[in-house]
């Protein structure tokens, strides 16, 4: 599971407050870093779609402090070193084994072989 995916994942346990269930807290037992070819334009397109605070928090929790600013700078598109750092944290760091925890309900979702299991039981959904 890449942090790009984590940036989208939310818990849909029933009964959560609106906007709840995000971001999921990562407890990783196995993390892998794998190089991915860098494409500045591609990363620049991703930036506006990201939920930035959640990304920073996730990076910290993985022990990969990203040296990213609290908010993307206004001219981020031209800042290659910034884009490279975003690229690295978003696409090159993967959680292979671990758990995602819903911040509201406490429900735990396991990650196995890089694939998070978000299935809810009938009662929960």
């Amino acid at each position, binding site marked *: 599971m*890449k942090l790009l*995916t984590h940036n989208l994942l939310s818990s849909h346990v029933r009964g959560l407050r609106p906007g709840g269930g995000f971001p999921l807290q990562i407890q990783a037992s196995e993390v892998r870093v794998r190089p991915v070819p860098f494409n500045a334009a*591609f990363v620049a397109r*991703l930036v506006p*779609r990201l939920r930035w605070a959640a990304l920073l928090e996730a990076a910290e929790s993985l022990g990969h402090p990203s040296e990213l600013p609290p908010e993307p700078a206004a001219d981020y598109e031209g800042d290659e070193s910034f884009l490279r750092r975003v690229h690295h944290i978003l696409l090159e760091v993967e959680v292979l084994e671990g758990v995602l925890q819903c911040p509201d309900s406490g429900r735990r979702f396991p990650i196995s072989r890089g*694939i998070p299991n978000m299935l809810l039981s009938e009662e929960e959904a």
Partner: protein
Amino acid sequence: MLLSLPISPASSGAVLCRNRRSESCTAVIRLAACTDGSLRAPPPVTVINAVRGGAVPRATRSRRFEALLSGTNAAACRPAPRAGEPPPRRGPWPALRAAGRAKMAAGGGRYFCTAGRGLEPFLAREVRARLGATEVDRVSGKVFFSTEAEPGELRKLKSGERLFLLLKKHTPIPVSRNKGKVLHEIKSLVIEEPKYWLDVISIWRNLHGCGGQKDNVSQENPSPLKRKSEEANIATKRQKMEQVRGTMSEECQAEGGERCVVPERKSDQDCWTESKTSLEDPSKSSGEEPIANEQLSFSFRVSCRCSGAIAKILTSQIFIHLNDIHSVVGIPLFRLPLANREYIKTAGLRSTIAWAMASLAEISAGAFVLDPMCGLGTILLEAAKEWPEACYWGADISDSQLEGADVNIRTAGLMDKIELLKASVKALPLPSESFDAVISDIPFGKKFKITKDIQLLPDILQEMERVLRVGGTIVLLLSQDLHKCMDGITKHAENDSPNAISDGASETTTAKALNVDGNSSSLVNGIEESFLSSRQTRFGSLVPDGVYEVSLGKTDAFIYKYRKISSAGNQ
């Protein structure tokens, strides 16, 4: 009855033979044009033993063919390898390649590509876009076109089945009660104007001089899984053919209708369908291609029930398709159908259809694309291969499917592009309005009991619509049963307000199918009415943007495209 022909130096020999006992007929064409710089006159070609449907054991047949080959000029056409030179296997063929490039630059060729029914418009569009094709002519099941593209580009066609160099295209062979006359017509079609043959052969050779080796290399990487599935495929094809041949042996002699000597797809009308696979399957030839021989002689066979041994000796085959529209003769360009993707380890949905669906989704750079019932991931693989500047996610509830998808993604080298989740399409753990495209092959109606799962369809659509941003597209593949249901659901929501839906069984109006040809479908049936009336749907914001009927082989399916318009007004 055997026919043999005197052959002039620059021509080919064609022989048709018929075995009275079984009433089946096989056309075998033997062409030998040797090019070691000169053309040698092949001696008159005699026949080929009649091959009867199903009855002749494989071993016998292959002995007969070997006898044929040893008795002809095949040997004569193969000069001994020059001393000290190992037979080139994968090395370049400089002379041919240079000549090939010159030829390609000079004008390219005319081709035709077969396509699954319903995919012809996609293929026509693709040849124009990808190959800059001209003179594009679309008929049922085939697209004819001219292009100067090189084989590497031709190989990339995604919505076609098999690609051929066009030898001839004529008006249909006149139908006649006189069988001999019909056979004569077929013979003339094939062997007339030998110059065509030589021209086309040189194009084919040039194409293969450039690209043929690559083909061999990539296909000699077969995973055992693929090989097994190909062999299983061949085994079932053969069985099927024997059944077909059994039933069709009477009708094979019938006039008119379709006679496919080497068809690319089975249909009820196919007669002696054939073991093209035995030629094309590289695993049969145990990976050792007689490359040295290919360089020097050139032989064809058409529609032979012959064993794998022949595949080693014969370099190509002729495809003849005779029907009411036209008579077409062509030479296949590649050993495997285009639909066999070397980057897909285990295919789920047919790759051509998966690609066609992805092409409808309007994937732009930076798009977020989701397949919420991804199975083995075929749609995502095709999409990510063609439109790599986007991000792809696949979700499925089945561990085994996800494992298969994972393997497929690794094999294709697309781990950077596609991420997987274990999640249910009924409750996607994803934020609203976060995806640009949702593409999915809805499995219901094919594997599962239709009545039970139809009830899930509105929930599924609702979730898909929720995660889609405004302006995004949904592309779905539905079985025929679901197709009827789908119209009921979406039309319902468009016509009625939410209140009416929850009240009103009586408001279930006739659902009109939004087919491209404007036909209306049948009424929504009783089962669907009962659950439709009890659910509030939010499909008012999904606008239909095309329905395409495609053939999946045995059944038909429908590709539906929807666009999400502003959801203001729907809670």
